[in-house]
């Protein structure tokens, strides 16, 4: 059955979208960029980071573009002072929640969180740092999980379940106590379900998941590979 065409306005410009597309997908298909962090093309969107929020005419609420389907006649605003303000707050809260010491990180210079801060011109945060005590799991022979750097985007959870089919990663606890855990809270090295494929490492936007053996600034992620793998396999997100 051919998919229904919809007309949508994005930042005033009339574009045509396809029924079932999210606002983010429709925007991207028309060459418009909306800032994102938890989204990774090919994986089911979850709306975790709130960076992609947009305004929709007729309502005061803000909507995440990555999980909100387009509707015919919708008018979407992706850039406004209000959105900038909220996106900045979300990003600043990510920075204060854990210990993002960019200068000592394997992903320094290649980190999506760091790059987003630069893009938004964030030179400081407005909130007090939390400085929590967090674990670093070195038990896997090839990879490291450093909770200090995790932003709970759940890309690792999704890539492991949806692409590798191994379902190793999960989120445990709630709110500020949420943590990524492997195989129902085993050490990574003891997680029998892990195939050591490394997809989670490549999907992770920060240095939270990294290969061992790299020094500061050396870990470059290849998350394009994840998206192209999804495309080639025809897995539908």
């Amino acid at each position, binding site marked *: 059955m051919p998919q229904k065409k919809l007309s949508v306005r994005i930042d005033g410009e009339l574009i045509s979208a396809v029924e079932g597309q999210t606002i983010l997908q429709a925007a991207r298909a028309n060459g418009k960029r909306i800032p994102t962090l938890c989204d990774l093309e090919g994986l089911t969107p979850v709306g975790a980071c709130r960076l992609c929020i947009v305004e929709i005419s007729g309502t005061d609420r803000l909507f995440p573009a990555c999980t909100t389907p387009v509707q015919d006649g919708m008018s979407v605003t992706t850039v406004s002072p209000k959105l900038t303000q909220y996106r900045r707050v979300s990003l600043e809260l990510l*920075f204060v929640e854990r*210990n*993002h*010491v*960019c*200068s*000592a*990180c394997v992903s*320094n*210079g290649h980190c999506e969180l*760091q790059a987003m*801060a*630069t893009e938004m*011109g*964030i*030179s*400081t*945060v407005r909130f*007090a*740092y939390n*400085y*929590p*005590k*967090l674990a670093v799991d070195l038990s896997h022979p090839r990879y490291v999980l450093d909770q200090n750097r995790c932003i709970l985007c759940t890309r690792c959870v999704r890539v492991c379940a949806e692409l590798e089919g191994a379902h190793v990663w999960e989120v445990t606890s709630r709110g500020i106590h949420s943590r990524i855990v492997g195989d129902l809270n085993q050490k990574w090295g003891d997680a029998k379900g892990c195939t050591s494929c490394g997809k989670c490492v490549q999907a992770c936007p920060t240095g939270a998941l990294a290969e061992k053996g790299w020094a500061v600034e050396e870990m470059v992620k290849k998350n394009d590979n994840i998206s192209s793998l999804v495309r080639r396999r025809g897995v539908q997100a």
Partner: protein
Amino acid sequence: MKKVKVATVWLDGCSGCHMSLLDMDAAIISLAQKIELVYGPLVDAQEFPEDVDVTLVEGAVSSQDDLNKLKKIRQRTRLLISLGDCAVTGNVPAMRNSIPVQKLLHQVYVEGVQANKIIPTDGVPALLKQARPLREFVKVDMCLPGCPPPAKAISSVIAELLDGKKREGTLAVKFG
């Protein structure tokens, strides 16, 4: 023309930001004609002067001594700039923040050495519970992150402050 009084201060940092400040090549010569360096690790002055126009502070606030200095500096400075990640975020000095101070000192000075297992107390300032960024103690007028901030970023910020003109191609700010 009256020279602008600039001070630099080194709190809990590695001095890398000061190195970066010195790394601005020829720009430092033209800058020297417009500013007077009145205090800091690069000059002799012992007492932080009254009436400073711009102070660049490197490092986190880690000890009671750092905090006292910072408060005095704030009173005597028109524009206070957090220079580098330690001053802006806490950065590496803040990596000790989840370890209680006594335990930390014990690990470093007793468990961590072969001989002279003594925790120093004479002539060293007492550590605060945590190393934290300047902004959490005093009003900061501007932040220049980076570890260290590139020399070019420091020189253009100072140049902008001096003549109020925005510089084209000013480097994008970046943590780390």
